[in-house]
Structure formats: C-alpha cells, structure tokens
C-alpha cells in the first residue's frame, strides 16, 4: 500500500522547486492533490507534472498572505473531495540578502506576511477542516534557519523561527483531536531560490556549500520525501517536531 493512498492533500507554493517535487512525491504516494501558488503559471506547471505521472491535481491561485483567498482555496478542496487529509504549507520567500540595519521595512513586512502569516492563514483553514473530521496531518516549511541564524537574512530567520513555534503551538492544541502538525527544516536546497539569491555573490554560494557537512546542497526531492513521510500514517506518533533535512548543517 502506498504511503498516502486515498488521501487528499493541499500543497502551497506548488510552483517552486520544493513545491513541485512535493506535488510529484505526494502524487506517487497515492494522494489526490490541490495545488496552490501565487502565480497561475506555477500552479499549472506543477499540476501538469503531476498528471504526467498519472496523478490527479486541481489548482488554485492564491497569495497565502491573503486569508480570504486561502479560505476560498481550502473551501474548494473540501467541497470537491469532501475532505482534506494532508497539507504541506510550503509557500515562502527569502527576502533580500541585507544587513539588519539596512533591511527595508517593506521587505521585512513581505517576508513575514508570506512566511509566517501565510502559514497561519493556511493552518487555520486546514485545521478547521481536519478537526471536524477528527484526523489530518500538516507539515509546515520552516528551515534550518528556524533553529539557528545566518547573517543578512534577519526577516527570513525571524519568520522561520516563528513557523517552528507556531507548529508546536498548533501541534499541542490539536494532538488529542487526531491532527498532527510538524515542520521540515531544510538546509539550503538546490532550487531557483538560493540560485537567485546568490547570483551576484559567488562567495555566498561557496559559503552555502561549505556550510553543509555532506559537501553538497540538498535536493528538492529529499525535502519532499520527508514531507510525505510526516504526512503518512507511519508518523502517527510524531507531532510538534521539526525534522532537519540538512546534510548535517544543524549538527555543527
């Protein structure tokens, strides 16, 4: 039996590297998918990839920082499938690389809106559906930088620490109601996000690589595999946990 056979799953930020890899991994695990992205093209591309491997995916365009849009999207899944079993709240942005004293207010606001308020919005709507059914599993994207810090990413670091705290808070409140809430803590994953962030700074790229004891960056599929496992019934006693997928980054 597949890990997510018969389950209905929602993935946000589905057009990004990790999001698309997760969509494929959830589909291969047997889940029917509803894919969210702020950009229609991203959501469509991910859905097409899912269909190519024989999976089933519907899409919605929503900026996760817009609570009403998130409520509509979650409402649509529940209406279409009658249920929501799993959610991977993966949408996030890095913000610019900028020292704290020079960090623009509007960038800080935007990073917190997407990374933290976005997860808050999604979880509120998802939990409403799951608690009603008495079962469900949520995985939030925190980061290795949700546990430690790195220079010039203060807003990102703050948002990801907050996601970890929010994950544990929600896990506690709903543990006895059949819903598990966990987070993934990826190291730097080889996707467009770090590539964009370091395109003008080969030094930063080199440091990123050196920060991972395994001597390489992670693959989107490796984060996706952890999200699938945390959503599966195999993880039935795991809740409130931040799972590092980081090549040893946090062990240093």
């Amino acid at each position: 039996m597949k890990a997510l056979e018969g389950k209905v799953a929602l993935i946000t930020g589905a057009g990004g590297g990790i999001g698309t890899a997760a969509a494929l991994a959830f589909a291969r695990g047997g889940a029917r998918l509803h894919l969210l992205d702020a950009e229609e093209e991203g959501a469509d591309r991910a859905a097409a990839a899912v269909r190519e491997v024989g999976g089933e995916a519907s899409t919605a365009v929503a900026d996760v920082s817009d609570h009403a849009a998130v409520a509509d999207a979650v409402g649509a899944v529940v209406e279409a499938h009658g249920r929501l079993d799993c959610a991977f709240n993966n949408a996030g942005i890095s913000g610019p690389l900028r020292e704290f004293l020079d960090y623009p207010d509007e960038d800080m606001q935007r990073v917190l809106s997407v990374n933290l308020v976005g997860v808050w919005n999604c979880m509120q709507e998802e939990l409403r559906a799951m608690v009603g059914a008495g079962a469900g599993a949520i995985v939030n994207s925190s980061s290795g930088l949700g546990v430690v810090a790195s220079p010039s990413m203060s807003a990102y670091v703050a948002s990801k620490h907050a996601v970890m705290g929010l994950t544990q808070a929600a896990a506690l409140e709903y543990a006895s109601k059949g819903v598990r809430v966990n987070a993934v803590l990826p190291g730097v994953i080889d996707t467009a996000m770090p590539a964009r962030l370091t395109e003008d700074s080969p030094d930063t790229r080199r440091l990123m690589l050196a920060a991972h004891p395994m001597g390489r960056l992670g693959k989107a599929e490796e984060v996706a595999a952890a999200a699938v496992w945390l959503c599966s019934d195999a993880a039935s006693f795991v809740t409130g946990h931040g799972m590092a997928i980081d090549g040893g980054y946090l062990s240093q």
Partner: protein
Amino acid sequence: MSERRVAMVTGAGSGIGRASSLAFARAGAAVIVSDIDEEGGAGTVEQIQEEGGKAAFMRVDVTEEDDVRDLVARAVELYGRIDWAHNNAGHGGSPQLIEDYSRADWERLLTLNLTGVWSCLRHQIPQMKAQGGGAIVNTASTFGMVGVRGMCAYVAAKHGVVGLTKAAALECAEDGVRINAICPGATRTPQLETFFAELEGDPRVAEEAYVEREPIGRLGAPEEIAEAVVWLCSDAASFVTGHPLVVDGGWLAQ
C-alpha cells in the same frame, strides 16, 4: 532494490528493538538480532522467520566491547555487509534521586546507554566506510533533550547519545554514512511497564499520570518508533544526518 539489505539491531529481544528488527525484515533486510536476553532474541528471530524473513541471533552485552566487535564481524561474515544499524540497547534504571544514586548504578547506566552506542559506532563506521555507505540510528530519548526527575544517569547518557550522534554524523558526512538518532517518548514496552511498577504506588496511576502529560493522549507503540528508524535508514532520508528525530506524541513541544 533486488539485492538484500543487511540490518543489525542491539537490544532486539523486546520492545522497540524487536519492533525495528521486524520492520527491517519487512523492508527486505536480513537482520542480525542481538540482545543480552537470549530468550527474547530467539523470540524475535522466530517472529521474523515466521513472516518469511531472514534473521540470526547473537548474544551480545554492549557494555563488553569485545562482544560488539564480534557482533559486527559476525554480521559481515554471515551476510557480507551492514547497510542499516539500530543501536538500541539501553535501560532506564530504577527511579532514584541523585543524592541516593549509587556510583555503581551511575557508571553501569552510562556504560550501557552511552558507551554501548559508542562501541557500536566504533566498529560499524569503519565497515560502512569500507563498503561505501550505510545508515545508523541510535536510540536516544525525549530525555536526551530535556530532563526528568529520578533518572539522572539515563538523562545524562541519552543527552550524550544525541551529542555523539551529531559528532559522528559530521565525521562521516562525506563518506556516505548517515548517523541519526530517534528520541522516543513514553512507549509501551516491557521496560516501561517495569518502570511504572517500580514507582511508588499503583503502576496504573503512574501510567495515567504520564498519559495525562502526553499531548496526544496515549503512549506510543514500539511499531511507531520502528517506522521512524526504518525511514531514517531508507534512501528517502538521503540528506538527513545528525538529526534527533522525535517520536513522542508532542511531549517535547510543551
């Protein structure tokens, strides 16, 4: 994967170790089952064989480094390699305050819970490096992350296991050998039942007090811990190393 994997488990005669041995076998591995308890170990082997799996028992006291060395050598002799190892042998000891704790008990528990894992790593790592990779999971505990009254040696040793796991993971990260830990919360094993029985008063009251503080509202099952062990060893966890995976129903989130 057509080629059979090889797993070794210490403390495999009951509880979590028995469950992980069975889970490894179901994942297609030949399993070297070891325990100080011969009867328990034989029972685990029997269960694996009944399910059509392949397993062999070896009596091992992990506090004896020669035993551990022989165990690793025997696994390689029998099956040619060690892909997955679950260093699980351990014991909580009897509840006792620090001022009443005997030095002998302290040393015994540190040797069993911490030095035992260290000995396993010492012999498994060269084998895994030589064969080009492998995955090891050490059994720590939620009490490897936080403290608890009455179990000072266990708490210290399990914190040690978490630290040792990270140190070893760093040393092996570029050699294809991943080393992680699991931190089980209160799990329904024979050892936990004994622990509850040794506390003052009614064991059922002690259990209820635990469950009351457990956010998920129940104890864990050994099979739930085993799932985490097998996942950490699987190729799906290829970028996971040095990680203490907490399987505790939310206990540590409080």
